[in-house]
């Protein structure tokens, strides 16, 4: 059981800046995120795309912004629990008990949900029986390469994951790469490698095709793919790999008794608290009249939510407003030498 002042859910820019604000006012926090890295949508959806509307930063990429935020919170030595999703939130006396997908437990008076549009999950095949074969014949990530040795593998997708795995598995398996169009969005070098392998007959390339159906009994033995003009081909297949990127799903957050408006959580604009005492929501996941889904709004919301956390974490203390330019105690927390 980990005791902390605040549990922050989500390690995107909004969550990270909230960590900074919490640290400044002397609160300890822990951060949980379902992705395997820090940065949220900035790092998962647009690491290389420039952002032009961060105050004081004319232009930076999602990755640069993330790195700067990580640097900014360094003094607070915050623990990150990555690859983990918060599954359960229950009231325990006047605190919240949180259980994650790895069965880690936290006890805290405050939760700040900075969850974006929910947690990232792989996009999956939509054909009949795809779910039944998941983790048996159908995979969306590779954990154990050895099971694919010498087998027929059909890989779907046009990005780097699909291309790189096609190249990798072509060394020891029969690879078929299937993509919905002729162009690939992966890096030029990977695309060229795959095209060379196809030309030399080492892998089969089927473009303008998508999965139509799977056949098998307990395990898949063949699949049918459909051309955009309608004709169907059957491919001998033991394993299907799908690399269609990630999608955001709200997930278990919808079970925590919060007040929802579509997929967003209603909050007040004084400290971004939800209808549940001690649960705050900031960033893209919160809504209120006039809400803008901008990173800068998330920063503001995080700063006020942090002050909201203070009164539950330090009920006997009075919060005192201070500036980083002049306050000795803030500079101490930031590790700034004078």
């Amino acid at each position, binding site marked *: 059981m980990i005791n902390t002042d605040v549990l922050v859910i989500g390690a995107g820019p909004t969550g990270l800046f909230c960590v900074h604000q919490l640290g400044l006012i002397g609160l300890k926090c822990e951060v949980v995120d379902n992705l395997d890295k820090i940065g949220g949508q900035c790092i998962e959806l647009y690491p290389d795309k420039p952002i032009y509307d961060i105050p004081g930063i004319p232009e930076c990429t999602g990755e640069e912004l993330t790195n700067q935020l990580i640097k900014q919170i360094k003094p607070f030595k915050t623990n990150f629990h990555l690859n983990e999703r918060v599954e359960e939130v229950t009231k325990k006396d006047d605190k919240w008990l949180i259980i994650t997908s790895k069965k880690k437990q936290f006890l805290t008076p405050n939760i700040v949900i900075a969850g974006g549009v929910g947690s990232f999950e792989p996009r999956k095949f939509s054909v009949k029986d795809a779910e039944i074969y998941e983790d048996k014949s159908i995979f969306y990530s590779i954990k154990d390469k050895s099971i694919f040795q010498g087998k027929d593998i059909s890989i779907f997708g046009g990005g780097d994951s699909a291309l790189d795995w096609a190249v990798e598995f072509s060394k020891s398996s029969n690879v078929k790469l299937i993509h919905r169009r002729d162009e690939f969005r992966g890096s030029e070098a990977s695309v060229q490698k795959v095209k060379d392998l196809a030309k030399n007959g080492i892998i089969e390339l089927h473009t303008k095709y*998508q999965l139509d159906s799977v056949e098998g009994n307990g395990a898949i033995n063949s699949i049918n793919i459909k051309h955009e003009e309608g004709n169907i081909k059957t491919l001998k297949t033991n394993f299907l790999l799908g690399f269609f990127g990630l999608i955001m799903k709200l997930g278990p957050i919808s079970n925590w008794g919060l007040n929802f408006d579509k997929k967003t959580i209603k909050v007040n604009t004084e400290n971004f608290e939800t209808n549940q005492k001690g649960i705050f929501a900031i960033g893209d996941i919160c809504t209120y009249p006039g809400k803008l889904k901008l990173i800068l709004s998330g920063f503001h919301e995080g700063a006020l939510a942090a002050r909201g956390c203070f009164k539950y974490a330090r009920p006997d203390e009075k919060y005192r407003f201070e500036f980083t330019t002049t306050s000795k105690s803030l500079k101490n927390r930031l590790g700034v030498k004078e």
Partner: protein
Amino acid sequence: MSKITYIESSGKSHTVDVKNGLTVMEGAIQNDIPGIDADCGGGMSCATCHVYVKENWFDKMPKKEDGEDDMLDMAFEPNKFSRLSCQIIVSDELEGLVVNVPAKQS
């Protein structure tokens, strides 16, 4: 204003007036058309505002930019008439546009 028709996968049809300059996605969200999620809010980075443009309209509208087809790779059951509705800007030329909404967005 232009009239845009959204047809759900069940066949249910919604014809609404959308202000010129808004996107077909925004027209759907403002009018509570089911089936268009638009998780990223119009940033061409989530593929959850995917629609199928009626064949006779597809060639009439401005072409896709590169990034749009990359995102469509991730959409639910894309076909050659697939577009991201956040990238279609409503104008007088699109008066009467018809789009089909997929059965789901993910």
